[in-house]
């Protein structure tokens, strides 16, 4: 059922990337590019005007996207440790917006070739800088919103430990203890991997590495819950009636 | 029987691990073999053997010499542990299945391959017998236990054990014949 919830949820929390691109009159279509081609047929001045207009709009949209990312970032509820990471990412987004402002200033005075060069440079700059930053912001958002899962899992583990100890004293099976041991290892692994992801942000490691750590930590949590389910199944068999 | 076994047992009953150690060293291989032939997998045999001696050491205080060897008591514990093992596993032994690890296990390292193959066929056939038949084959034909001791371990009369071993061998031969065909 949660797959049905996935697109809207993805939109809500990946507003960092997806919705920013479509936000606030920043919809660029293939017709816009066709219009530039059409203008070229009308002469150099028409083409130049069309190129300048579309390039200005495109760079403005890129700036709006960065602003939207920054707004989402600043809206996250983070602990004091994570505020440092957030501040770093926010500063880099400020740098991006400043860069776009500088490029926008060049467009007004550029010729056709000049607009082509600006477009090429901004494209390359985004590939080398901005897209990594946007990915890292998306990762950080994902990571922040996962933290409560680790806290919940730890609380769950403590409760399960109590019940297993209690049942063992009453003579319950070894199966409970071995499942619990596995769950303990998995929760610890998840927390270690989660800490590694935090460090990856602090060290500005590549986004794909950070994301891999986040994915790993979540998978370890998921595996831990499988063990909790296994314990639950055993406990159900010990109980005479279901609640 | 171990030299000075009575003294060792007496000290072990009093909780002296220095006395239980030599008893463990002497009897562990035969209990291991008994379990291994019945369960077939080295890992399971090791686990169960460990449980047997742990249970023996935990309950040594309750051991009383009643004219039977110490090994009889150990075999009785081993039989119960194997039953518990199957109860926990809730699995049937596959007669077709040979444990590939068997061929490289330290336990069988010194046998040549054709002997190992023959032994494994026989072991698989033994595993297909009912538990009492398995026990009597291991105790009487592998470990060469005297009839009296085997009877005590199996909690049967000597006459019953004689009859049982005869039937067990016949059944084993029939199963091996079936395997061949």
């Amino acid at each position, binding site marked *: 059922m949660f797959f049905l919830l996935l697109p809207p949820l993805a939109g809500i929390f990946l507003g960092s990337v997806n919705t920013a691109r479509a936000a606030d009159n920043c919809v660029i279509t293939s017709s816009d590019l066709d219009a*530039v081609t059409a203008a070229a047929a009308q002469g150099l001045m028409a083409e130049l005007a069309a190129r300048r207009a*579309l390039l200005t709009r*495109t760079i403005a949209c890129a700036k709006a996207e960065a602003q939207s990312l920054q707004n989402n970032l600043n809206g996250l509820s983070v602990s004091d440790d994570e505020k440092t990471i957030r501040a770093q990412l926010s500063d880099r987004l400020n740098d991006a917006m400043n860069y776009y402002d500088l490029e926008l200033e060049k467009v007004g005075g550029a010729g056709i070739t000049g607009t082509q060069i600006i477009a090429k440079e901004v494209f390359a700059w985004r590939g080398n800088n901005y897209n990594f930053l946007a990915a890292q912001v998306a990762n950080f958002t994902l990571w922040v919103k996962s933290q409560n899962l680790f806290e919940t899992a730890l609380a769950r583990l403590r409760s399960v430990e109590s019940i297993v100890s209690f049942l063992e004293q*009453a003579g319950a099976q070894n199966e409970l203890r071995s499942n619990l041991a596995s769950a303990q290892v998995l929760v610890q692994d998840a927390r270690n991997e989660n800490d590694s992801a935090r460090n990856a942000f602090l060290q500005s490691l590549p986004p794909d590495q950070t994301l891999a750590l986040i994915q790993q930590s979540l998978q370890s949590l998921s595996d831990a819950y499988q063990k909790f389910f296994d314990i*639950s199944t055993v406990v159900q068999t010990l109980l005479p009636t279901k609640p | 029987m171990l030299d000075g076994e009575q003294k060792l047992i007496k000290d072990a009953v009093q909780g002296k691990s220095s006395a239980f150690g030599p008893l463990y060293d002497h009897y562990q291989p035969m209990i291991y073999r008994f379990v291994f032939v019945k369960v077939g997998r080295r890992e399971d045999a090791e686990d169960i053997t460990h449980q047997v001696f742990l249970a023996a050491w935990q309950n040594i205080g309750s051991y009383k010499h009643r004219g039977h060897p110490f090994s009889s008591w150990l075999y009785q514990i081993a039989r119960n542990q194997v039953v518990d093992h199957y109860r926990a596993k809730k699995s049937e032994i596959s007669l077709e299945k040979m444990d590939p690890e068997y061929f490289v296990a330290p336990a069988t390292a010194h046998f040549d391959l054709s002997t190992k193959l023959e032994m494994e066929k026989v072991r698989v056939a033994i595993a297909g017998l009912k538990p009492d038949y398995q026990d009597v084959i291991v105790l009487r034909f592998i470990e060469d236990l005297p009839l009296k001791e085997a009877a005590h371990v199996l909690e049967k009369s000597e006459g019953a054990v004689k009859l049982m071993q005869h039937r067990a061998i016949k059944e084993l031969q029939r199963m*091996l014949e079936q395997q061949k065909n």
Partner: protein
Amino acid sequence: MNLFQILKQFKNIEPDPAFKETSRRAILAYRPVAPTTHLWSAQRTLWRIIETGAAVALTGFFVLLITGAFSGSRFVPVQYSAVDPQSLHAEAQAIDIQIQLANVTYAESAVESTVQTAGGKLLGNPKKASSTVPSAARGTTEATSTITIDQALQGLSQ
């Protein structure tokens, strides 16, 4: 070899020495309780009775626990909700959702890199503009698709 000869071979099976040593050490590290000899069999019987009674009591305890008879009592040692399947499902589902979102994040970044390397053929060569018929002038109507910022920049760089 006949059957009896093969059976005799089994006597040569030896346990792994490393296992034997490890097992021995683990077992001897355990300290057994000193025996009480006089009431041994009576004591064992008594323990059996107590164990049976404990099993009955434990069952009764669980009945009371799950029917809420202990609710609010400070004597309840554990919370059954620790292994309640419904709450476990809810928590596990939240994790699964995050995993799916992480996978979407990964897919997003993969698409970005594809766009970067795809190369734009969104505009025809401007020098051949006359031979390129814009979609608006074509006899047939084509659907307009949204393009990304990078696609737009790439188109404008040509």
